[in-house]
């Protein structure tokens, strides 16, 4: 009641602002629900904690003011993107973190509307080809052409703006007459999209720099590999992960049941190990553990919080091991469908199931393990060739039942 007129003004203000950036969101919003993963994400190259040689190379790269097209690859949660953003930060300054999302629509040849998100800052934009389905070639070509042709105009505008607002930062901007395009999940690009990219890379190399991110290079065609600088970011070692975690633990004043330093480190390394050295997963897992306990007791059983879908797959493997009948195959199908409907990729299911089976059989039984893995790879191939994954997943389950039955 008391805040009448004041509130009225602020209200007006807020409304104005909301109208001015229709459909674009400033990423500042995400810090409202700040998790440790976001809070402790390094913003500059100096803050990076592991892989010092890579950091050094990136620093050298940034200091030249220019860089070739990059292909950054490595397992998930190893810090590929963090490193890219840190490098861009070094190059362009803090402006790189002023992110917004634009929803672009693209009309395909069959007149279907396609919507995809582009994450962008004044200096770069970021796309995910899997958003675009089968049309990735056309969409990416279009988008890059767009960026390359409008770049000049955009850039001079920006220059003036920066000059007008702040004379000092303009010097940094003028050096880079190019825009960076980050392509996420580059390994999911279709073959023809990749082929098209290779021409685009040469044609627009004067004002576009591509940074492609992928988990492996095996799906990327050789011409692209040869036109890019390959940067491999390996997964951090368990010690490195635990170092990061213990840094967070100190900052957040996480309480442990015992103050004994080596014990704590051992515990954190257990977490790192259970999360397959995926730093992102490890940090989330650690935060979950510490949120659920007032003080964390340091026995190793406490260091695992398995993901729900992993638990489901583990139970599935047990059921395959113990009950090898046609009737059980129908139950297995229910579980497969359950996982598929929840967008768990079929290949992830196959891989995890295979590993669970192998672990349960015992790695030393090389004959059975060999057969299981060979069957697994057959169906893995079929998964990528075929259309409906349920056939192949069930095929794998059935075949592994037969193998296990014979081995008995």
């Amino acid at each position, binding site marked *: 009641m008391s805040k009448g007129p004041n509130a009225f003004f602020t209200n007006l203000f807020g409304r104005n602002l909301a109208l001015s950036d229709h459909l674009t969101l400033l990423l500042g919003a995400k810090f409202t629900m700040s998790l440790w993963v976001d809070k402790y994400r390094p913003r500059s190259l100096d803050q990076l904690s592991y892989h010092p040689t890579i950091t050094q190379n990136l620093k050298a790269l940034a200091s030249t003011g220019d860089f070739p097209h990059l292909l950054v690859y490595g397992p998930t949660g190893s810090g590929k993107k963090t490193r890219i953003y840190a490098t861009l930060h070094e190059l362009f300054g803090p402006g790189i973190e002023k992110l917004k999302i634009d929803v672009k629509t693209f009309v395909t040849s069959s007149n279907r509307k396609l919507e995809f*998100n582009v994450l962008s800052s004044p200096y770069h934009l970021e796309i995910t080809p899997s958003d675009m389905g089968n049309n990735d070639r056309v969409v990416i070509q279009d988008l890059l052409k767009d960026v390359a042709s409008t770049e000049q105009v955009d850039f001079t505008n920006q220059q003036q703006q920066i000059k007008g607002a702040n004379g000092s930062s303009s010097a940094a901007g003028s050096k880079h007459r190019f825009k960076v395009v980050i392509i996420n999940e580059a390994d999911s690009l279709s073959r023809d999209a990749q082929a098209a990219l290779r021409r685009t890379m040469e044609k627009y190399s004067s004002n576009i720099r591509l940074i492609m991110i992928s988990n492996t290079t095996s799906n990327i065609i050789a011409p692209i590999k040869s036109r890019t600088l390959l940067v491999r970011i390996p997964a951090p070692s368990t010690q490195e992960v635990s170092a990061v975690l213990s840094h967070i633990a100190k900052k957040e004043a996480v309480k442990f049941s015992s103050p004994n330093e080596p014990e704590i480190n051992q515990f954190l390394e257990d977490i790192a190990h259970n999360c397959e050295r995926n730093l992102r997963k490890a940090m989330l897992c650690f935060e979950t553990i510490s949120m659920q306990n007032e003080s964390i007791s340091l026995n190793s059983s406490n260091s695992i919080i398995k993901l729900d879908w992993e638990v489901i797959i583990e139970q599935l493997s047990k059921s395959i091991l113990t009950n090898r009948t046609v009737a059980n195959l129908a139950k297995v199908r229910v579980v497969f469908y359950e996982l598929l409907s929840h967008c768990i990729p079929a290949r992830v299911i196959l891989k995890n199931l295979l590993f669970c089976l192998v672990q349960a059989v015992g790695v030393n039984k090389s004959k059975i393990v060999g057969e299981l893995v060979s069957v697994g790879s057959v169906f893995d191939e079929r998964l990528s060739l075929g259309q409906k994954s349920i056939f192949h997943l069930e095929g794998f389950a059935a075949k592994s039942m037969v193998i296990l039955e014979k081995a008995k």
Partner: protein
Amino acid sequence: MSSSDESITDDTEEFILPKKRKLRVKESRNVPKRDLLASTDGSSSTSWIDQYSPRNTSELCLHPRKLSDLRKVMSSMVNGGANAPKLLILHGPSGCGKSTSAKLLAQDLIASSETSLIEYTESNSFVEFLHDARYRVGYNKCVILVEEYPNVFHEPTHQSFKDSLWEWLHIDEPLPPLILCVTEVEHQSDDNHGREFFNIQNNWTVDTLVGKRISNHTEVAKVKFNPIAMTYIKKALNRLIQSESKSVFNRIPKSETSEFVDSIGKCGDIRSSIANLQFWSTMRSKLPARDEKSMELYSIGKETHLNLFHAVGKIIYGSTNNAYGEVGDDEFDIDYFTILDVLSTYPSNNLLQLSLLENYGIFNNVDFDIEQATKIVDNLSLGDVLGGSSAEGANKEIGIRGVRSILGSVGSHQTMSKGTKGAATSIKFPRHFKIIREYNRITSEIREYQKYVRSGISFQDLNLIYGFYEPKIYNSIKWKTKNGIPNTRSNYNRLGGKFKEIYPTEGLPIADLEEEEEEERLRAVYDQYRIQIKTQMNEGAGMDHETDDGGLSDPIEESDSDFDFDDSIGDMELNNILSQTKSQQVVPPGRSHVAGSDGDSDSDVFSSDEELDELIRKRNL
């Protein structure tokens, strides 16, 4: 009625659209039909369908037990019995006597009144029609028959049609008997791609027409008509032949006539059988007694339709009689031609393969070796790899033929217990489409979350890792207290909802939108993820978020307290707004609701209020 056109076009029209003609005749109930039709021209152009339509219930081509069942239900409706249903639905394939039996029974039961039956015609509004029909009680009593429907392919019309039926079921006064005749049709389409569920657009069944809510209602009685058994059709046709023997059939050899009757009697559709017989006999009688061409006329007839479940059954169990007749009885041949038959009806085999995967287990009641099952699945998997949309020949058939040949080699030992197997293991419709729907729902939810809240993190990371850990963190009391979030706020569920098992259904899956929307709404209210996405979405779209969210999130926890709008915005929202605006260096907008704000927000208050009311009501239930 076309008067001068007595040429062939008139004839054919009669055969193609026998139903249309009949409907036009119907309007004047009390005039004997025969006169009307006789006026056309001579006996040959008169439709036998009308001419020989049964005049009383004893002439009906119907199983006596079905008839007596129907009579019982209808008489209880007419006389207002204690357990009389308010709505009777007669459903079945075309030409099995649904509307004819309803009309004849109506005549029987309401003898006193002048008009025993009124029908809905498409020209009227259905809502008004039902409203007027309500007063057809007492002396005016008559049966209300709905055989034509308003344009239900138009969604709002369909909705109002369902709503008025629903209303009808909840009227608390004596009602005239209302009968719906539903001729069930399953449309066959070549591409089952993207078909996510069955609805009125692609299937005309009771469930798609009136919705499950009505079709399973206690006040509704359903009588299913089956295709008419061959013996009944033959009896009726022979009776007809008898009376037409002087004009037409004396010119046709008896053996040919009976052969033809045998061949058309199989289809189970009395209307089409009579039409065929009439056409055939007219043509045949113009040919000389012994003629090659007479055989060709056989091809005119109703095509027997192989439905999906039948097709799956044929592949899994094989078939004992082969479809083409002329080849040897070798078991291999039979299988070969059976599958050829099935494949010709199902040119795209995606749906068929999925159904086989779902159903191969019913063979021998899952009592066969795992190795055989493995081979089956392996074949289906190969079929999926090889059988793309452009696949030809063997590539396309490998999955389906593989299943038959393996199951054929296993050999059935079920013949002895044939009676019991039907009930225990019936063929299921593949749940693939349900899965796709669920998949799409979850995908769009995660994508929205990605778009509005957590941009920059890949879809799979969100689904696989964040989706599980985040709720655990956000829901923990420690996190809440640390971040100053009230404990009363609704919790986060797993991103995209909990994992849930999905089972295949028997029969065709029907989209039940009402139920789904309900479920969706409840989930949206109790899941903080949804609320968060919505908040961000509204902010992004420049909507008046302060008022919009208030109704959705917090007040639910305090349903018995008075709904005070100003307090309804939780600290959570405030935090959100604060930090959102902080990064933009703008004074945070207040959350107060001042007189100065425009009408938009006022209406928002209303809408959220209503929603809340409904929620409160639900919780009390």
